[in-house]
């Protein structure tokens, strides 16, 4: 097992290396270049290119970049000329992480609770309400959801602050906006899974042994039904933590989402690569953990292809 994990980590590092290399060259294929202000004179553009080392042969730039990358140095941003990419990411990441974790907590806790209540009340009005919430949640794009939440809860009814991120009440609407889709899908999966589990023999056995309904639900039904939810969480975590652009811009939260879009729009090479390396590492390791867990959870899946 230890050997397998070690091998997997090695492969992940190679993957990240390939990813960064691919993006390095793709980014430079983009039209426009980083210094595209029409007012800049040709000499200013040349000077800027030289300043950032963009005038050197592509391969040399690539080697320099890799050298810096090994030292964890992402270089200077072209859009924010006095700030390093490390500085920009270090400043923005805490906001995104905070928002992402809150959104996930909201999504998972509410999703599970809604799913369970819904399944236990199958067919009656309560079920219908939660099913409608779940269906609504999975069928509205996040920018519409965010705009509606902000419009009604903050602007029209004044229940929450409109924007910014400087206290608990400020975090509520963005967390809901970001987590709603996940909440809805967790609740749907949980409901379906609960209904499947309830028909299993061990539940009938437990009931016929005279265990109270509450204990059966709590100890047997929910614990078994939660597995499918756990399996979708891997990709979901990544999606929530990366999908923050819309919510952040709507609620004026200074997180990383904006760099994801802005860096590409400005052809800010160092920032694009910094973002890619950062998120890429995150995603690759998420997938790695899922793969390893896959082997741990399901004994039928053999590890190592022996």
């Amino acid at each position, binding site marked *: 097992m230890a050997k397998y994990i070690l091998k997997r980590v090695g492969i992940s590092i190679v993957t990240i290396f390939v990813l960064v290399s691919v993006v390095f060259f793709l980014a430079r294929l983009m039209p426009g270049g980083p210094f595209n202000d029409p007012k800049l004179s040709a000499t200013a553009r040349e000077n800027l290119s030289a300043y950032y080392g963009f005038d050197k042969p592509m391969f040399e730039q690539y080697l320099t970049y890799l050298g810096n990358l090994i030292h964890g140095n992402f270089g200077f941003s072209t859009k924010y000329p*006095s700030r390093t990419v490390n500085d920009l990411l270090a400043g923005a990441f805490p906001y995104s992480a905070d928002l992402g974790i*809150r959104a996930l907590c909201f999504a998972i806790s509410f999703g599970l609770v809604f799913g369970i209540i819904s399944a236990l009340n199958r067919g009656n009005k309560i079920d219908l309400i939660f099913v409608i919430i779940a269906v609504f949640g999975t069928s509205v794009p996040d920018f519409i959801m965010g705009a509606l939440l902000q419009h009604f809860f903050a602007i029209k009814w004044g229940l*929450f602050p409109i924007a910014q991120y400087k206290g608990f009440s400020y975090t509520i609407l963005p967390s809901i906006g970001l987590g709603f889709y996940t909440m809805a899908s967790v609740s749907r999966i949980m409901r379906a899974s609960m209904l499947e589990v309830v028909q299993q023999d061990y539940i009938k056995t437990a009931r016929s042994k005279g265990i109270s309904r509450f204990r059966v639900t709590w100890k047997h039904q929910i614990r078994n039904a939660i597995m499918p939810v756990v399996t979708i969480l891997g990709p979901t975590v990544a999606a929530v933590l990366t999908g923050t652009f819309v919510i952040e811009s709507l609620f004026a939260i*200074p997180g990383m989402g*904006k760099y994801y879009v802005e860096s590409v729009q400005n052809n800010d090479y160092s920032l694009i690569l910094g973002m890619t390396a950062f998120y890429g590492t995150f995603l690759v390791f998420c997938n790695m953990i899922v793969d390893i867990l896959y082997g741990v959870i399901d004994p039928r899946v053999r590890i190592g292809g022996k």
Partner: protein
Amino acid sequence: MRKRKLIALCMAAVMTLSAAGCSTPSTSVEETQGAASETGEEAGGDTSGGTAANGEKIFRYSNTIDIATIDPNKSNAVADSTVCYHIFDGLYRNVQGTLQPAVAESYEVSDDGLVYTFTLRQDAKWSDGQTVTAHDFEYGMKRLCDPAAACPGSYLGAVLKNGAAVSAEEVPVDELGVKAIDDFTLEITLENPADYFVSMLSMAAFMPVRQDIVEQFGAEFGGGADKQVYNGPFVVTEYGEGKLVMKKNENYYDADKIKLDGVELLTVADKTTAVSMFDAGELDLAEVPSELAPQYEGQVLSYYSGANDYAALNHRNTYLANKNLRLAMNYAINREEYNLLAHNGLYEPNLRYVLPQVRGVEDEYGTEYPLEAFPLQGDMDKAKEYLDTALSDLGLSDPSEITFKLVVADTDDAKKEAEVVANQWQNNLGINIEINMVPYATKNSMLVPGSDDYDIIMSGWAPDYSDPYSYLELWYSTSRYNYLNYDSEAYDQYLDASKTTTGKERMDNLFNAEKTLLEDGALVPLQLREVQYMVSDRVQNLGAYFIGLNYDYMYADIVE
């Protein structure tokens, strides 16, 4: 209302529960107050911001993106320059068109208009206590043009003697036309005489820069509040994610006239959000997107941002090389309806090329030299006439044989403008327009002479100094900006003549150049951009201008 509060409280309570379940990472996100105490008050829509509570006068406004840098040499965007205007003090201050001495007490100009000698005041201090000297100005301007420093605004330094040559590494930096005679005397030599030079001196590019601080922080100079020193009315105390905070500079020699205690500049990407925050009293100034402006009628102010937007016609295209067709396209635009559709009628339809508000000889250029090159509502008969002539010139039988590729950036406003213009040309002339939406950076990279990537491109120009020449120099046949690929002998001659003449004669030449440009229908002027904004009642003395900054809150005051 009680019910709503209850809902809010419930939601907040459950959120607390779910938030308590997960460990929040140790972040810089401040949890200012306890959750329980906050929800009750804030949920009620309490509008008095925390800023005013302790009696401090804090002016709060927003920008759609983060401030890129507070290094004055490297700032390029107007929002960045605005910050620099307030945290630095140049030789002279251009207070919305009126010149006012700043670090320089006075200046003398040589008879040929080339050598300016500034006498500096001796009580100007940096925020760390050092005296502001002529050497700081010399270093700043040399750094601006130094190719090794690679400042994007080096094109502005071209006004100085050898400015362009220094940037191009043709002559060493030491030969730049700026020299500190002693600590308090600065001599600046220009490349060509420029009446407007002193008015440019409050632009970020010409601010003093401290050599020792630059050397201390290297490339990270200006990358944080503590990586810079200040000599202006304000100092930056916080510069980071989503926020820039300024505090009154007590060391400023004119601190008595500065009424504000501080300024808070927030990054609010969504303009609609900013307007809502203004409504809730969280901002003192908000720009209003034109679709929202009718809702705030009576409250909305506006200023010319200086940008004159036009559809640039590429004269390399065989059809667009035809003057009659270009004129037909100009007459076919109903600029009143265009403005109504694209901007709710809030921008000013532009019937000429140069912004009329720039300085003329004595007064505004537009007042001295009025011009209405095309009728406001267009002239469809004239358009048809020109079109028919053009078609026979080009040997075409039907306008539908003509198809133009119209390039536009992917911003909301630009997209709308392109849709309206394309629609009018299609309906009024019968030619075909294919709109090609590209990322903003891609569009900008197309704005070079000799390009065949577009037939028509939605574009505009903001001036660097208050003079018609700032707009007109673009289309000189060999200008590096000439992306129209416009080549007119008459136009070039008028511009050449303007360089050797002064006063009214010079202005006449510039006006003739503008007239030539429009009579050729070289481009299709559309609008003068008027930024709609709202200011809270408690703010007084706030100004807005179109060169080097947008809002001027140096002398602003807040009264409750």
